[in-house]
Each structure stands twice: as C-alpha cells, then as structure tokens.
C-alpha cells in the first residue's frame, strides 16, 4: 500500500514510517500540514495517517479541506487528546478512524490495514473458510474437520469478524467496537477471556491453531 504520514514529532514519525515500511508499505512522510495537504490532494495514497496538531495547517483543517475537494482517501487521525469530543470532531471533519497517543505500533498497523480498501470477504458470501474451518452464515453452523462446533451467539460474531478479515490483525479495541459495539478502555483482559473461550472450542480439539495472537497488537486468523 502507499501511505502518507503527516506528523510533526520526528521520533513518532520515524517510528511509524519505519514500522510501516518493514511491513512492506510505501510510505511518504511530511512534518507540516500544508505540505501534507498538497501531497494528499494528489490522490495517489491508499491511507493517510494525520496528526491532529500540526504547525501552520492543523490536521483537522487538512482533512476538511481535502474532503472539500472531493478526495475520499481514508484518514487515520493521531492525537494526544483523547476525549470523546475530540474523537467526534475528528470523525466529523472527515476522519475515518482515531488513534490516541501513546499507541502501540501493532494497533496503528491493524487500523491502517482495516482502513485500506483491500476487498474483504464479500457481504453476500454464505460460507466463510479458513483452512479446515467452515462457517455457514445462513444455517449459522460452524464445522471444523467435519466436526460440528457449538458456539454462543457472541462467539459466533467474534469468529465471523475474524474470518471476514482473514489474514489481518484485529486489535482488542477494534473487536470490542465491532462485536459488542462499545468503545471503552478496559483495564482488565476482557477480550482475551472471550478469545480464549473461542479458542477452547475452535482450536483446542484440533492440532493446528487458527486464531493467532499477534504480540502487542491483537488477533488474526490465517487462511
């Protein structure tokens, strides 16, 4: 993917850029809003990563201006502010997602991947597959290696979410938002406990683990 990072703090910018390059992305980096706007307006990027506080033209103005020109490139805002209104104002300005500093690189990477327009499993698909696991969406039946697996509704939703985004990391907060529709900051490992229950049914009886833990980031199902 081709990404643009607009971030004035050099340490953070270098860190993000290096990490994304290591993952195989092409990354351009600028430290100033005006320059960022000019580059972004070219429309050649898959995802923009924009700090909200920038010298001269700030992140909000940048994205608002960009959207005003009809550019719809997905935007991930980075911010040191983390209140609900900041989030709302960011999303209202045309941002697609929001990440509060300090963040782990894994979280950033997972969110960038989620924002990219890489086609995910199509909505109308009726069977999702990963290795020997099959999920029948109409009959709501899950089978692995010919055995039926009984799942509770929320476990089914969790597995469906991961299967639809096969090969992509989903962070804990992303899972909470997608499966439970709640956005909060849990102090305890609530997501881990749900995943481990799911694993006990989907992975434990079989010899290969499908649900992978990605250290410092989240979970992923490999195909």
């Amino acid at each position, binding site marked *: 993917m081709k990404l643009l990072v607009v971030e004035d*703090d050099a*340490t*953070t910018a270098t*860190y993000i850029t290096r990490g994304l390059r290591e993952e195989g992305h092409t990354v351009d980096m600028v430290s100033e809003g005006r320059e960022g706007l000019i580059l972004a307006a070219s429309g050649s990027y898959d995802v923009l990563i924009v700090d909200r506080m920038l010298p001269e033209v700030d992140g909000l103005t940048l994205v608002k201006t960009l959207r005003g020109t009809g550019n719809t490139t997905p935007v991930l805002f980075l911010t*040191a*502010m*983390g*209140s*609900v*209104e*900041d989030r*709302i104002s960011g999303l209202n300005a045309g941002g697609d997602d929001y990440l*509060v*500093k*300090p*963040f*782990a*690189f894994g979280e950033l990477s997972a969110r960038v991947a989620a924002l990219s327009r890489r086609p995910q499993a199509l909505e109308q698909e009726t069977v999702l597959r990963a290795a020997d696991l099959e999920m029948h969406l109409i009959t709501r039946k899950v089978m692995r290696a010919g055995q039926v697996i009984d799942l509770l509704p*929320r476990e089914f939703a969790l597995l469906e979410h991961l299967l639809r985004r096969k090969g992509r990391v989903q962070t804990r907060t992303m899972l*909470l938002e997608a499966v*439970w*529709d*709640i*956005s*909060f*900051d*849990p*102090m*305890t*490992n*609530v997501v881990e*406990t*749900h995943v*481990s*229950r799911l694993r006990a049914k989907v992975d434990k009886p079989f010899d290969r683990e499908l649900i992978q833990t990605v250290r410092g980031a989240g979970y992923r199902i490999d195909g």
Partner: protein
Amino acid sequence: MKARLAQLWRSMPVRLALLLVLLFSTVSLLSLAASYAVTQNSFEAAIRADLEQDIAGFRAAPNAGAVALLVDAESRDTDPSRIVLSYISPNGRLFGNGAIARDDEGYHIVSLTQDRAEYDGAYLALTIPLYGGQLTVARSRAQIEALGTVFLNILLISLLPTVLIALSGGLYLARRSKRHVEVIGHTLDDLTDGDLAARVSVSPNWADDMIRIGNKVNQMAGAQEAQMQMVRQVSSDIAHDLKTPIQRVAVHLDDLARLVPPETEGGILLEKAQDEVTGIASVFQSLLQIASVESGSPKSHFQPVDLNQLCLTFSEVYEPAATASNHSLIAEVPPEPIKVKGDKNLLGQVIANLVENALRHTPEGSRISLSLKTQDEHAVIEVADNGAGIPEAEREKVLRRLYRLDASRNTPGNGLGLSLVEGVVKLHGGTLQLLDNAPGLKVRIVI
C-alpha cells in the same frame, strides 16, 4: 399555611410594609383623636353658650309665676328632642316639656330615654335655682354623639384603604423581591453544584440593591470560572504536552525491544519499563478524560442511551473474565426499557470501572451483581459485591483522585476509576452513593 405566613413575616418588604402601616395608623389615629377632642370641646362650648343664653332669657322674668308661664309657652314651640325645658316651682309643680329634677345645680349630662319617644339620647343640662324653684334647660347632645360616627367614618374611609394598599403593596414587593432573591439563590446553588457557567440574569426592573447584588454574584462567578478554566487548561496542557514525550519513550523502548532478547535480564527490565509507560499513559489518559467530563462539553452530543442493552452488554463482556477469576457476575435487568439522555461510551466506562473494581478488590468466590431498575422516574444502576467493602470513614476519600485504600495498594489500578465514575455521573445530573452491602460494597448510581 402557618409555615407560609411565618415565611412571609420573615420577608423584609412585608416587615417594612407592616411597620409603615402601623406607624401611619398610629399617627392617623392620634391626629383624629385630637381633632375629635377639639371638635367635641367646641361643640360642647357652643351648647353651654346656648344654655347660658336660654337661662338668661328666663332670668329676665320678674317672678316664679312668670317663669312658669314662660317655660310652658316656650315648651309648646320646642321640639323636646332638641331642647327640654323643666321648671319646678317653689310649690313643687312641674312645668315644661320634660321633667328634670336635680339635687345639684350646674352642668350635667342626663339621659332621657325612658318612656317618651320624642326624647332622644343624652342631653347637656344646666340647672339653676330661680325664684325658689328649680329651672333646668337641657339641649340635645345628639350632634356631639353624631360627631363620633362622623369621625369613625373618616377613620374608616381614610385609614382602611391606606392599610389595604400598603399591605398589598408590601406583599407584592415581597413576592417580587422573593422572586429576585430566588433567582440569585438558584444561581448560587448552581455555582455550588459546580456549574460555573451559571449567572444571575439581572433584569433592569429589579431594585437597585438587588441589581448590585446580582452583578456582584456574576462578577464573582466569572472570576471563579476563569480561574477554574485556567487550572483545567494548565492541567490538561501538562497532560497533553507530556503525552508526546511518553509516546517517544514508548517508541524508544519498542526499538530497544528489537535489540534485547526477551528472556534475558535486560529483556525483563525492558518489559517492566514498558508496563510502567503503559501505566503512565493510562493515568494521563484518565486525567484528560476526567478534565473533559468535568468541563461538561460531552453534554453537547447527548443522545438517548438504552441502559438495558448497555448493562447486558457489559455483564456479557465481563462474564468470562469474572469466571476466570472465580467470581460470579449476575446481571439483573428488567424487561421494560430504561433510557436516559447521555453519552453511551462514558456510561459504559462507568459500568466497566465499577465491575472491574469489584472484580479486582473482592476475593475469589465473591458474588458481584449488576442491576438496573427505575425508582421515582429515575434510572438506578447498582453494582454490588459481597467482598470486604469500604470502611465508612474511607468512602468519601475513595472518590478523590489517585486515592487508594491501604488494603488495595498492591492491586492494579491507578485510583482514578471512581473519580471518573463520579465525574460522568455528575455530568449526567445523577448522584453516586457508596453504600454498605452488609457485607460488601454497593455502588448506587441514580440518573
């Protein structure tokens, strides 16, 4: 009623009005009484002068017989309700249109009311000895008597309306100033409750002193708000400005983690450092969130929140975590929908913080319940456990920022969870109570 009267009596304008009415009435009464006395005296004097003249007329008669004749003749033309003449001749015969026999002589007041209708009321009589007999001329005092009625009427006509007008004016002013005082009182209440944006809406129709008080209150509130704003700004600036360096430290530690193998001594230290940085970041995040909640700005995007759904979701989210730590988590949510206007994410964070607190601070095997109900049109959320609870003396303190009970120093947490809960509950106009669940703690939120 009695209470209202008592309250009315304590109102300053009513007191002033009553005092004025009292003063005015006293002065009016005194002056009326004085003029009554003066008028009565002059009337009395006039009657006396008339009587002297009457007597003088009879004295002109040469002897007792002539007096008797004169008295009889005069009596015939005289209305006894006005003048009564009586002469008792030396031989005891009675002449005149009324019989007044007196032992004493001179002026006296007589009442002739007995059998004869034409006599009316009180008379002023003058009795003198004349030619061996006794002559009495009595003139009716009806005029003087009437004077009383006249003065009473004057009193009623002049005083009553004054009293009524003064009293109702006083009452009106009292109610008006009571309203104005109430406006100021409400503003002060709001300010006390932490709504520093509250101001007295001073109307130009108010009394000058009220306007002055109102403006002073507004000035004070403005100064207080500006100071609070500054303190908030400074603390959120500090938190904000420190987040970028924290991010940098996190980045450097991440970079370091690539160089140091995880299971070595260095790797273990590194992991500890990373955990600390995460902790610091979460404290800053919480402080910023509390600052934002206390500023009241999330109110601008309040929406109806389905509390049933919220409680069920959170009990479901925490159920495996509770089971894993050997706690039982039970949700008691009624079938009928309970909704409040608010911020779903903040209310969710409140439930999460309370449930996490309960999970963290109660021993294995404890029972935690999350319940929702309505009480007097209010939504009530309760998170209760049967753990050790919080000693009563400590309950206020745990709401303080960064405060931790001695017993829980070694459990994870930053001491900001309940502060945020309190802030969010206040933001929603609700109340937060920490109660004894005997045994355990029951946190009750009423919105």
